[in-house]
């Protein structure tokens, strides 16, 4: 028995870049998860929202109508982020992928999906702007706070929110799988406590006005950039948690 050496089959193996790209293809082999369901949720929410506006308008409601229904598919991204971890990650190991290839490819697939969703959202917003809210002053996508810096700003905000939820779902399930549900629950409560603590601080300092001003001044683009930075931090955290995880 000699030392290990490649067998005669050793040939050029596909590059990591190629394999990462194939992870994106892998995520879209079943188009349901990353394409149809988010679209159906978005368009379903839009349709329901429109019907409600119609009812209100038909009964003499006046003034512009806004709703937060367009965030519906964003929540679903937390779910698919979690599933990418619990189901697709173990499968990726059977496909002999490295954790990094899987993670980067999956994040890219989520970004592709989020971009598609954002395009629909922006298109609906533009339609609403052109038709003054379907002629009844009702808005699903053309929400004033999001559009103060134009079409791209609104798109960036929607995209950021979607990716943020995906990464949160992914990381949360990574923590569940690696450290168990107890630790994950403790972490979730810890994060919530930090949030409450921040609220307490701002309230004690009577700084809500300043906070609101910051959001207005930063605008959708500024807030989105901060959101993307947060998503990047979370993504790095996820990849570090995933890195040494056993299947």
């Amino acid at each position: 028995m000699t030392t290990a050496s490649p067998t005669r089959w050793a040939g050029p193996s596909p590059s990591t870049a190629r394999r990462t790209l194939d992870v994106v293809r892998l995520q879209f082999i079943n188009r349901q998860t990353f394409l149809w369901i988010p679209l159906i949720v978005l368009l379903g929410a839009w349709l329901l929202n429109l019907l409600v506006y119609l009812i209100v308008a038909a009964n003499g409601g006046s003034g512009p109508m806004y709703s937060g229904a367009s965030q519906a598919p964003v929540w679903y991204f937390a779910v698919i982020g979690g599933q990418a971890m619990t189901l697709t990650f173990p499968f990726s190991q059977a496909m002999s992928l490295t954790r990094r290839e899987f993670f980067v490819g999956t994040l890219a697939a989520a970004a592709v999906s989020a971009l598609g969703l954002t395009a629909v959202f922006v298109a609906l917003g533009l339609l609403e702007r052109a038709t003054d809210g379907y002629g009844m002053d009702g808005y699903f996508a053309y929400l004033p706070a999001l559009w103060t810096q134009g079409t791209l700003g609104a798109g960036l905000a929607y995209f950021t929110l979607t990716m943020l939820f995906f990464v949160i779902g992914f990381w949360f399930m990574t923590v569940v799988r690696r450290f168990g549900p107890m630790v994950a629950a403790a972490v979730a409560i810890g994060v919530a406590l930090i949030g409450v603590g921040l609220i307490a601080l701002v309230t004690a300092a009577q700084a809500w006005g300043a906070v609101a001003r910051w959001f207005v001044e930063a605008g959708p683009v500024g807030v989105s950039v901060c959101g993307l930075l947060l998503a990047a931090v979370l993504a790095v955290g996820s990849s570090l948690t995933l890195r040494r995880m056993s299947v």
Partner: protein
Amino acid sequence: MTAVIEARELTKRYRRTTALDAVSFDIEADTIYGILGRNGAGKTTAMSLLTAQSLPTSGTVRVFGEDPFENARVLSRLCFVRENQKYPDDATARHALRAARLFFPRWDQALADRLVEDFRLPLRRTVKKLSRGQLSAVGVIIGLASRAEVTVFDEPYLGLDAVARQLFYDHLLADYAEHPRTVLLSSHLIDEISDLVERVLVIEEGSILLDATTDEARGLATGIVGDAAAVEPLIGGREVIHRESLGRVTAVTVLGTLDDRERRQVAEAGLDLSPVSLQQLVVRLTQHSSPGAGRAGSAASPRPDAAVERTIR
């Protein structure tokens, strides 16, 4: 002989249990290995570590001379579909096979198609709704059609009927003959795969109990068949690991080999030496090492596989 995998002092500890305890072994190229042992002995853990799906607590694994962890160059030449493999939500068998085609450079679609037909695998049904046997078939098909240089099958027969199991063995042998590669096969159906495997690695309680060729393993024991009265004196002080009697004819398997004098005795008494069942041997080996298990003489149960499959604690 070339080692494709080298494990050194490999240890894997979970919170309370030590699944593998400082084991060292080599896996040789182009050989079919039987990874044998009782439930919980550490077989799956070992296979997970060799394929870098899990990380060792300590010790090293080298595959093709390199650390396989996060190493795409090495991983793309391995294939390990787990016994309880998870698949993406709502994925069908077709999706799974299409994915495998993306990632295994030596994937043979024609072989995959033929296997799908042979195993009668419903391609459109979601994996969640497949029967246990069909689920095993997905893993078997990916493993065979990937043609990976190191292919690991973890109890691939679960839920497969006798016909399907035979299909698997036949396909494995036929494809192995054409495309030699290293195959690790864990199984409880030891006699069923004993003609298939060239080497056995018996794992018990996190340690390697036996690392030998199948013939060497069989050589650890001797089977004697013939008139009961003539067989008895030959047993001597040896441990009987299996005994079967039908009328006056007795077949015993004893631990150890016969010396020349005894061999002459066998011939003179008109007795026959029979091939040893690998399963009986493994049952004996793994029972002996676990405390409180069957004593010598009663070690061979009438259904050895039942004894093997009894869960450890």
